């Protein structure tokens, strides 16, 4: 028996790695170190169902007994403060030192902080943990009006939940559209339009400059253009930053994330990195990419589990993402960032269409609104690396399902 595997970070990626290793027969020790007191849980519902109804979903990724019966040691509320890469051991905040045969950094990301006055006032929230989600739900449901800084996935999901609770919402966004860079312009338009019809007020091309407090509690946002937005609760959703402190301390290469190769190995052959914190060479384009998604966490965990069990291969899973706002269920297949051409394909049903995205004529992926079959077909097209041209998509007879099947390898 070896010293086994230590996984730093007990989120979706860490849990997926531990459970995949056990499911595939890994027999040596597995230790999962998490800085939260809760056992591993899913984060996607935190900005969706959990904001509407506390009891609506169970977010736990496994029951407490799971870790016992599968011999996974979970160290909760513990922080790894140092990696001694030379001696292959980690040091915990509690003073213990644990040896490893292989170390996996699944440290995730943290919400980006705004460096403005008033962010420490009561009633100002960011969203990452179960506790944050509960605080936002309670705050929102007891508020007359809330303000959201940032019109990304998190900001808009919070806005939708607040409107469903009858709370007035203003969203401040520095760019000219919602979900800038992460969705296409036609899709952004559709979502902005729906939010407006639901009563959300948007302030575009403006930035929060100061949060105004009274008796220690936030009461308003003041913006650069001089606007004052009254709010009982302010939610900041301006993106996340990868947690790389340990990697830096361990002397690993870091560049907007822990730098890994196509097999998800860091610059130390005994250390891998997966999930939100890992910056990997893009298998479908140029440069490096870092993805914040359940798919990326789980598929990267599976890739590293295979390697640790002796089945080495590159990471090349097709990325996919989703967001739910009101009854709009958007699914994105592929990394569509950097697209320069979009083709909208209507279904004839309300709130249901696709946007195919291309860069220099090369198909990158597609967004599907309220239509799972098309989304799955696009995932298959990307997985098979089937060529798809803009002209083929423009053909009124085009069916992604038929295209995926026709071009499927025999």
């Amino acid at each position, binding site marked *: 028996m070896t010293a086994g595997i230590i996984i730093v970070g007990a989120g979706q990626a860490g849990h997926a790695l531990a459970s995949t290793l056990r499911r595939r027969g890994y027999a040596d020790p597995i230790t999962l170190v998490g800085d939260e007191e809760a056992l591993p849980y899913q984060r996607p519902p935190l900005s969706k169902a959990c904001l509407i109804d506390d009891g609506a979903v169970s977010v736990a990724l496994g029951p407490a007994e799971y870790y016992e019966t599968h011999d996974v040691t979970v160290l909760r509320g513990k922080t790894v403060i140092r990696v001694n890469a030379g001696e292959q051991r980690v040091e915990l905040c509690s003073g213990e030192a644990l040896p490893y045969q292989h170390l996996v950094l699944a440290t995730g990301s943290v919400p980006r902080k705004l460096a403005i006055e008033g962010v420490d006032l009561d009633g100002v929230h960011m969203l990452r943990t179960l506790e944050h989600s509960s605080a936002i739900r309670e705050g929102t449901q007891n508020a007359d009006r809330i303000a959201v800084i940032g019109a990304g996935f998190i900001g808009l999901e919070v806005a939708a939940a607040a409107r469903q609770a009858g709370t007035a919402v203003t969203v401040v966004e520095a760019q000219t559209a919602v979900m800038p860079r992460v969705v296409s312009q036609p899709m952004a338009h559709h979502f902005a339009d729906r939010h407006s019809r639901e009563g959300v007020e948007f302030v575009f091309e403006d930035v929060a400059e100061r949060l105004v407090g009274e008796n220690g509690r936030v009461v308003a946002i003041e913006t650069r253009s001089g606007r004052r937005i009254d709010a009982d609760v302010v939610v900041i959703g301006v993106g996340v930053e990868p947690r790389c402190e340990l990697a830096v301390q361990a002397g690993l290469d870091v560049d907007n994330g822990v730098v890994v190769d196509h097999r998800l190995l860091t610059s130390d052959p005994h250390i891998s990195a997966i999930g939100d914190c890992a910056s990997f060479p893009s298998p479908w384009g140029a440069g490096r990419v870092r993805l914040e998604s359940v798919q990326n966490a789980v598929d990267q965990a599976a890739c590293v589990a295979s390697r640790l069990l002796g089945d080495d291969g590159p990471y090349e899973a097709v990325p996919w993402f989703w967001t739910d706002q009101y009854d709009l269920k958007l*699914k994105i297949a592929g990394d569509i960032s950097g697209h320069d051409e979009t083709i909208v394909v209507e279904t004839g049903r309300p709130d249901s269409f696709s946007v195919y995205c291309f860069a220099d004529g090369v198909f990158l992926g597609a967004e599907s609104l309220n239509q*799972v079959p098309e989304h799955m077909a696009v995932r298959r097209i990307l997985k098979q690396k089937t060529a798809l041209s803009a002209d083929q998509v423009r053909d009124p007879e085009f069916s992604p399902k038929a295209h995926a099947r026709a071009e499927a390898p025999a």
Partner: protein
Amino acid sequence: MTKVTYTDAQGQQHVLDVSAGTSIMAAAVTHGIDGIVGECGGNLMCATCHVYVDPRDADRLPEMSDDEEAMLEDAVAEHRPTSRLSCQLVMSDDLEEIHVEMPSEQL
């Protein structure tokens, strides 16, 4: 309550009492049953909660949507006429008992 019998690819059985309103996937995940992953948490995004339903129970279950059918086509294990996504199999008090078989692989 519905008595759900989960049989894994090795033939081992697990029996759970699942309350109305809870899916077969959610019950399996919260009880740590290995054969069901439920990666996306029941959002019809992943097909990692694939099960084969005993044909005798098939017509007593919620009907299959186009979305579920599309996801099943992408499941890792063999797609059979009895295939379902267990996140869509929400139990009700009308249903006393059900048997599902879990494929050897979900991911």
